[in-house]
C-alpha cells in the first residue's frame, strides 16, 4: 500500500501538470519519510486508508463520481476518520465541478516564474470569502453529482456495516463504531487531553467537558472547510493535521494520515526548505522528541513525570499549530477544478 500511495501521488501531480523533477521530490517525501516507513514496516493498515483516499481523489479529478463514492463509502466503513472530508467533497462536487465536456477541468500547476509574469492576469484564486452569498453557496451544492455522491457513498457505508453486522452481530457494532462514543484513553499519548482523562477516569465525564474538548476541533475543521475547500488536497491536508492534533488520543500512526497528503501540496508552497521548511520540520520533530523523552522516563524508568509529560503534550500542540500556520501563510491557494471563462483561455477563473 505504501508503494501504491507513491504511485498515486505521482499520478495526481502529473494530472495537475507538475513537471517530472518536482514530482520525483514529492514522491520521495513520502517513500523516504522515516515516520511513514517505520510505521509501515511494523505492520500497520494506515497506508491502505491513504491509498484509498488518494484513489478517491484521482477518481474525482477524472470525473468518476460513482467510483469515488464507492471507495469513499467503503473507506469510511474501514476507518472512520475520512468522514471529515465529506463536506469538502460535496463542496467540490458542487455547481462548478464538471466542465463543458462533462469532465472536470484541472487547474494546472504554474511555476513561480510564470506566476510573476502572469501577475497582471488574475490566475490565482483567492480563498472563498467568508461573507459570500450563503444562499448561492448552498444552492450550488445541490447538483446531480453531489446527490449521487452522497447517496451512493452513504448506502455503501450502510451496506458494508450491514454485512458485517449480519456476520458478527452486536460485537462488531460495539467494537467498530459505538466504542468511539465512549472510549477514554487515559494512558499517555501525544494528545493534551490524556492527563485530564486520567485524572477524571474514576469520576466520569460531564457533558460540558465532552463538549469543551470537542469544540476546538469542530471550530478548526469548519473554518478550514469554509476557507479552503476549493483547493481540495490542501484542505484535506490541513484538516487531517488539525484533526490529529486536537484529537483526544494521538498516536504516531495517525501521522501517516497527513504525510500521504503532504506531497500533494508541496509544489504549491512558497516555503523553501531552507530555512523555513527545515524550521517547521525541526520544531515539529523536536517537540515530539521532547515528549518522547518524558514518556520514556514515565514508562520505562517508573518516574512520576505526569505533569512534565502533559506540558510536553501542550508544547507539541503548539508546534503543530505553528506548522499549520506557516503552511497556510506560504501556500499558493489554487483551486483543484477550474471553469474556463471563455474559449481558448488558459486562465483559471475566480470562483464565487
Amino acid at each position, binding site marked *: 500500500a505504501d508503494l501504491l500511495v507513491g504511485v498515486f501521488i505521482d499520478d495526481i501531480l502529473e494530472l495537475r501538470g507538475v513537471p517530472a523533477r518536482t514530482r520525483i521530490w514529492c514522491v520521495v517525501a513520502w517513500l523516504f519519510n522515516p515516520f511513514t516507513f517505520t510505521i509501515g514496516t511494523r505492520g500497520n493498515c494506515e497506508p491502505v486508508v491513504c491509498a484509498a483516499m488518494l484513489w478517491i481523489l484521482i477518481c474525482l479529478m477524472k470525473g468518476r463520481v460513482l467510483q469515488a463514492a464507492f471507495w469513499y463509502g467503503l473507506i469510511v466503513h474501514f476507518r472512520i476518520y475520512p468522514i471529515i472530508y465529506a463536506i469538502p467533497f460535496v463542496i467540490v462536487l458542487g455547481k462548478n465541478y464538471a466542465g463543458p465536456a462533462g469532465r472536470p477541468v484541472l487547474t494546472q500547476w504554474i511555476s513561480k516564474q510564470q506566476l510573476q509574469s502572469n501577475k497582471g492576469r488574475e490566475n490565482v484564486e483567492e*480563498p472563498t470569502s467568508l461573507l459570500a452569498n450563503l444562499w448561492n453557496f448552498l444552492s450550488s451544492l445541490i447538483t446531480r453529482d453531489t446527490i449521487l455522491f452522497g447517496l451512493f457513498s452513504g448506502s455503501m457505508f450502510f451496506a458494508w456495516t450491514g454485512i458485517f453486522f449480519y456476520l458478527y452481530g452486536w460485537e462488531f457494532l460495539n467494537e467498530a463504531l459505538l466504542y468511539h462514543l465512549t472510549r477514554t*484513553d487515559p494512558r499517555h499519548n501525544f494528545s493534551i487531553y490524556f*492527563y485530564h482523562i486520567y485524572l477524571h*477516569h474514576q469520576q466520569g465525564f460531564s457533558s460540558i467537558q465532552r463538549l469543551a474538548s470537542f469544540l*476546538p476541533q469542530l471550530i478548526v475543521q469548519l473554518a478550514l472547510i469554509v*476557507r479552503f475547500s476549493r483547493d481540495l488536497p490542501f484542505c484535506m491536508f490541513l484538516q487531517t493535521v488539525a484533526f490529529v492534533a486536537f484529537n483526544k488520543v494521538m498516536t504516531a500512526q495517525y501521522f501517516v494520515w497527513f504525510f500521504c497528503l503532504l506531497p500533494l501540496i508541496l509544489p504549491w508552497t512558497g516555503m523553501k526548505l531552507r530555512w523555513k521548511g527545515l524550521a517547521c520540520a525541526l520544531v515539529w520533530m523536536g517537540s515530539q522528541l521532547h515528549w518522547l523523552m518524558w514518556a520514556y522516563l514515565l514508562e*520505562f524508568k517508573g518516574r512520576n513525570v505526569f505533569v512534565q509529560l502533559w506540558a510536553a503534550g501542550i508544547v507539541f*500542540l503548539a508546534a503543530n499549530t505553528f506548522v499549520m*500556520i506557516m503552511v497556510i*501563510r506560504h501556500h499558493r491557494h489554487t483551486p483543484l477544478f477550474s471553469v474556463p471563462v471563455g474559449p481558448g483561455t488558459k486562465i483559471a477563473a475566480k470562483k464565487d
Partner: protein
Amino acid sequence: AAQIASTEENPAREAVAVRTHARRASGYSGGPRGRPANPSGRASLPAPLPLFSPISMAVGSGPCLLAVALLAAAWISDASSSDKQAHSNQQYVNCMPCSRTYVADAYADALTSQLSQHHDLTEVSDTTDLCKGLADELDVPTLSEVNRQLVGEGSHRRLIYSVKFGNFKDAMIQFLDGYDANLVIIEKLPSGVFADPFELQHFVERKVFLDVAVFGDTNLELPSALSNRSAVEIHFDLKTSTSMDYNLVIELPLHARYPPLDASGYATVEFGSPDLLLRYRRKETHPDPCMWAFQNLHVTPVEKAAWRIPCGDEAHTGFVSSLTFISALVCSMSIVLAASLTT
C-alpha cells in the same frame, strides 16, 4: 468450612487474604503445613484447594460473594468428608481429566458467574478411585526452595521464579522416565498488574513454556480502577529441566496499569503467594479415562514482591484541566485567524 463461611462478610479484597489463610488452615489433612511434602507421598491435597481460592477472590459483589462462599463451603465439607473416608490407609491424590487443560479455569468461570464448576468439581472427586492407583509407591518430586523476584524498572517488569527440586538427581530421572510431569504455576495477579496473553503465546511458540493461559481481565488499556483482576497459569515441562539440573528459572513478563490517583504520586502493588502444583501422569499405559494427578507443592511462603507504580495526583486536576482547555482554544483560534487572514 466454618472459617470459610465467616469470611463472606468481608469485601472481596480482604476476603482474598483471609480465604487464603483459611485455605491453609483447614486444608491439608495429614500433610505438614508450610514444609515440602514428604517424599514418601503421605502429604495429600484435598481436592478443592487449587480451585477454591480463585473462586473466592474473583467475586466482587456482596450477594454474589455470599452465594459462592456458601456453595464452596458446602462443596468443601462434602469433599472433605469423602476425603476422610478415602484417606484411611491410602494415598489421596487430586485428579483431573486430561480434557481439562487448565487448572485455573474455575477462576474464569467464576468471573462470568457460572457456578457450574460446582458440577465439574464433584465430578473430579468421584473419580478418586482411579487417582488412588496413581499415588501408590510413588516418589513424587518435591520442592526444596522457591524464590520469586520482581525484576526490572518502570511499567514493564518480569517476575522470576527460581524453583529447586529436593529429590536426588537419580530419583528425578527415574520419575521423569515413567511419567509426564509439568510444573504448574498459578500466579494470581494483584489489581493493577496484567499479563499480555499475546506476549505469553510467543513464549509457548518458542517452547519456553509448555502452555500458558491468562484468566480474567486482559484488557491492556484500562486503568486499574476500571478493570478486574486476572490470573496467569504457566505449564512448564520438567523434561526440559534435566539440563538445568532440576533448578528451574521461569520468567513471567508483566505490565502495570495506571493506578488510582494518589497524593503521594506512587502506588505500591503487592503480589500474593503463587500456587505451585506438580501435574503428572503415567507415560506408557494411558488409562482410560486419561487423568492427570496433582500434587500441591507446599512451599514456605515466598518473599513479598512489591511494585511501585507512578500515579496521578488529584491536586493537579484544577490547573491541568483548565490549562488543557485554554491551550486547545488558543491554538484553534490562532489557526482560524491565520486562515481568515490569508489573501
